[in-house]
């Protein structure tokens, strides 16, 4: 049997994207990085939506706070980046986080690579929060929240200041 037809018969059961998500989920449950916890009940049957709780890191402006991220994957994952937003009652006040939960972070769009993972995204977001020196919303927050598409990946982001 040729490799291609083998893949096609395999994919009717689970697609490569589902296999990869499954593997990532197991790893995240078994060995979660500090302060990151996947909400197992929130994970849908087809693995296309996960909620992940992350804690503000000790010694940073967000110490003691708890946040929730929503990850959405399409069937082209990991070639397409996941759609990631903050959800829930506590959206971190941060210069790259809009009050509707959208995050301006280059690895979520332009600089996404299939070698990244849910775990590496969580760690990048956590370190983005940790390096913040002043809690404030992005300067264009009001307008953006009013006019943006529901999907943050449909925003053409301009990545400017990586140091905040």
């Amino acid at each position: 049997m040729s490799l291609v037809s083998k893949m096609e018969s395999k994919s009717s059961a689970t697609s490569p994207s589902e296999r990869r998500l499954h593997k990532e989920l197991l790893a995240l449950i078994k060995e979660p990085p500090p302060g990151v916890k996947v909400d197992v009940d929130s994970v849908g049957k087809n693995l296309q939506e996960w909620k992940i709780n992350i804690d503000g890191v000790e010694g940073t402006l967000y110490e003691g706070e708890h946040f929730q991220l929503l990850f959405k994957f399409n069937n082209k994952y990991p070639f397409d980046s996941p759609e990631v937003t903050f959800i829930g009652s506590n959206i971190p006040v941060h210069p790259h986080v809009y009050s509707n939960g959208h995050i301006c972070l280059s690895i979520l769009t332009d600089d996404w690579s299939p070698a990244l993972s849910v775990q590496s995204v969580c760690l990048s977001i956590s370190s983005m929060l940790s390096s913040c020196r002043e809690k404030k919303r992005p300067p264009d927050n009001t307008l953006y929240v009013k006019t943006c598409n529901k999907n943050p990946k449909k925003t053409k982001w301009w990545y400017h200041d990586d140091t905040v």
Partner: protein
Amino acid sequence: MDQTEETDAVNRDELIMQQQRQIEKEISDTIPLVSEEQPVDSLNNEYMGDDVYGSKVRDLAAKYRAIRRTRPDGNCFFRAFAYSYLEYLAGHKEDYDAFKELALKSKDKLVALGFPQFTLEDFHDTFMEVIEHVSPGENDKQELHKLFNAQGYSDYVVVYLRLITSGQVQEGADFYQNFIDGNCTIQEFRHQEVEPMYKESDHIHIIALCSALNVGVRVEYMDRGEGGQVKAHDFPEGTDPKVYLLYRPGHYDILYPN
């Protein structure tokens, strides 16, 4: 800027992105990831009545018997390289064995360089699977072509070559730093220009991949420049090329020498 203008600007972004996606979809619907072999003078269809290109196509056709086109999706260099090199290896057992050995060892090397083992493994496994299936003993000559037109395999190969390239840039950081312009650090360059899919390749990508895999590549440059002939450039200089590519601004295709 007043409020309406700003709102317009936001909507314009969305329109631009929509259009971009539409173009990408048209390309992927009409152009295969890798085409069948075509005569070199089929290039003329794109340059009707253009004297500069006309004479360069004639020059190219005198040196090469065929061209195989790749989809212009930003991955064309990596895809063209992989296809062409694996095709060569399928006919050269000794080189094939050496390459397989190198490919096997590459995973540990990349992990040692700091790539996450977890995601790397997937790409490495699929890469090895593809190499296995195009071994010199493989009877089905169409297998390589089928694999490279199955996105699930083709893109995995592209990713793995991007990671090998990135690893090489990291390893030779002192050398490659000289080729990176502006304020971009080696790390930024690797994460922004090498590892993500769809990012176009430059000399630095080619040099890094060729050195990582010990392969010589000849690129024939065809652009609007004077002279009426295509210009060959070998990477690394002075090596005996195993892979032949045609470069036209922004795009690479595969060439077959006479």
